[in-house]
């Protein structure tokens, strides 16, 4: 166990070196969620605030007229989703350059390769979400229950990150080439975003979309976080159970793939 921790730390240090050296990716990675928050937020906020006639209607559907706070939880979760889904990329490049073979030829624990990416993606996501949160607070986003809200971001963010990043790592080991990896993940991101309650509450979606969104893991991370921020009723345990079930499926798939590739 202590070997696993030492190996995981040795490899995580490498990802932290990347983070420090690759300023461009770091900067763009931090700006990207802010773009959504600062452009989409005020736009729709403006619509909601000024259209008195629809305001009551929107409160009924969104449970708030504070669209920026509503949107914040969606953006925070989307940020974690993007990091997690792209979490396997360095591994796929390590596979292609032969660096992975060098790690695999060492006595380092196999699990540490996956664990180090997971630890890194969580750390990086928390950094990003932290910055998004600071900006959001400056823009006027308020949490009804600050402590619960912070805990919800941590807990549900981690649950989502676990399943998605493990899935991404499994694909990084399974897919033959990075271009296929990018094609698949690029294809998935938009529908995952739109078929989630990021921009619109689930209740306000067309029936068939609601049905699809119920199967989107993002939904079960956004809704409890949003409820903590807005102070609206929620079913956090149901959401947690849904995400846990998703994680179990992802882990089972990943173990199968990794066993075949990392024996």
């Amino acid at each position, binding site marked *: 166990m202590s070997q696993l921790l030492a190996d995981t730390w040795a*490899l995580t240090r490498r990802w932290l070196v990347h983070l420090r*050296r690759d300023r461009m990716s770091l900067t763009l990675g931090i700006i990207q969620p802010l773009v959504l928050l600062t452009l989409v937020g005020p736009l729709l906020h403006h619509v909601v605030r000024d259209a008195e006639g629809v305001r009551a209607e929107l409160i009924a559907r969104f449970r708030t007229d504070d669209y920026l706070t509503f949107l914040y939880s969606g953006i925070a979760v989307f940020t974690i989703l993007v990091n997690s889904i792209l979490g396997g990329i360095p591994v796929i490049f390590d596979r292609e350059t032969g660096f992975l073979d060098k790690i695999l030829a060492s006595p380092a624990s196999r699990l540490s390769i996956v664990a180090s990416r997971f630890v890194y993606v969580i750390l990086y996501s928390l950094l990003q979400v932290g910055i998004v949160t600071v900006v959001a607070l400056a823009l006027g986003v308020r949490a009804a229950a600050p402590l619960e809200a912070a805990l919800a971001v941590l807990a549900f963010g981690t649950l989502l990150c676990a399943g998605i990043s493990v899935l991404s790592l499994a694909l990084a080991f399974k897919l033959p080439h990075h271009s296929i990896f990018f094609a698949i993940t690029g294809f998935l991101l938009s529908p995952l975003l739109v078929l989630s309650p990021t921009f619109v509450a689930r209740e306000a979606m067309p029936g068939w979309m609601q049905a699809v969104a119920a199967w989107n893991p993002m939904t079960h991370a956004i809704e409890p976080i949003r409820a903590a921020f807005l102070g609206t009723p929620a079913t956090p345990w149901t959401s947690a159970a849904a995400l846990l079930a998703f994680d179990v499926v992802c882990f089972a798939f990943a173990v199968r793939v990794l066993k075949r590739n990392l024996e």
Partner: protein
Amino acid sequence: MSESRGPAPADPGGAQAPGGAGGQPALEVQGLVKDYPGGVRAVDGVSFTIAPGEVFALLGPNGAGKTTTIKVLATLVRPTAGTVRVCGHDAVREPDRVRALLGYVPQEVALDRHMTGLEHLELSARLYRVPAAERAGRIAHALALVSLADRAREPIKRYSGGMKKRLDLACGLLHRPRLLILDEPTVGLDLQTRLEVWRFVRELRRDGAAVLLTTHDMDEADELADRIAIVDHGKVQAQGTAAELRAGFGGAMVKVELGQADLDDGARAALAGLEGARRCELRGRKLLLATDDAAALAPRVAAALAARGLVPRAIGFGQPSLDDVFLEITGHALRDEA
């Protein structure tokens, strides 16, 4: 396996290291087979043994099965059949023990362009469980060995190709492996770097490490290796020291270079039956005759050609090169496929 066709003089079984009596071999490979899906047999019953402190070369063209053999040894690929033991530990049953005893430097330089040389060595040291207290000393020693001490803190994207190769080699020996595996260590390197790699291998041997290298370069095998296994079509076709392999060829040879017009079966027939010539083969514009006494055969060759009115451009005699041995054993020139 006992597939050794052609010369394997000192040791017909082909799997014993010289002087290995008593001491445990650094590496023992027996009957190694690797099949890939689709019925491709990349390695077909390879056996050899490397003694501690010995430099052993797998010599063969690309596609001969060298890299697959090495990947099995490095525990990256599971063998279909056969056994691999490193210092007595089975590579399939105890992969972690074996990994700790091996250093592996793949053919392609595999480095992380974001990291410095020092960070690479630090990572390797940690992954190979070099004790924290010894890390700095071993890293400094490795950097000195590959002459990179003054560039260690620079990101490797500023390194030249030769510097990267040297860093890669240094990463492979931080944990003082009992067996260092170098897959095509000098492919694509300039002459100077190539000579540095050779110096590096000699220094390792001086330190007592066993080295297994693959190459499709005769000179490299001749220059560096204590023993050589000639590999072709997934099999060891012959193995021994360079001298033994040459002796198996017939000890000496006569080379006759002919003009294009004379290259007909007549010239070949005239020479094939000559007393003292054991074989006569046409390679390019040259006829090669294997013999035990080249000095005696050469004048007879000149006379036989003159009797047919043929004037050779040149007649030479002497020791066969490893190229000649390879051609003799595999039936094709190494460089044709390399």
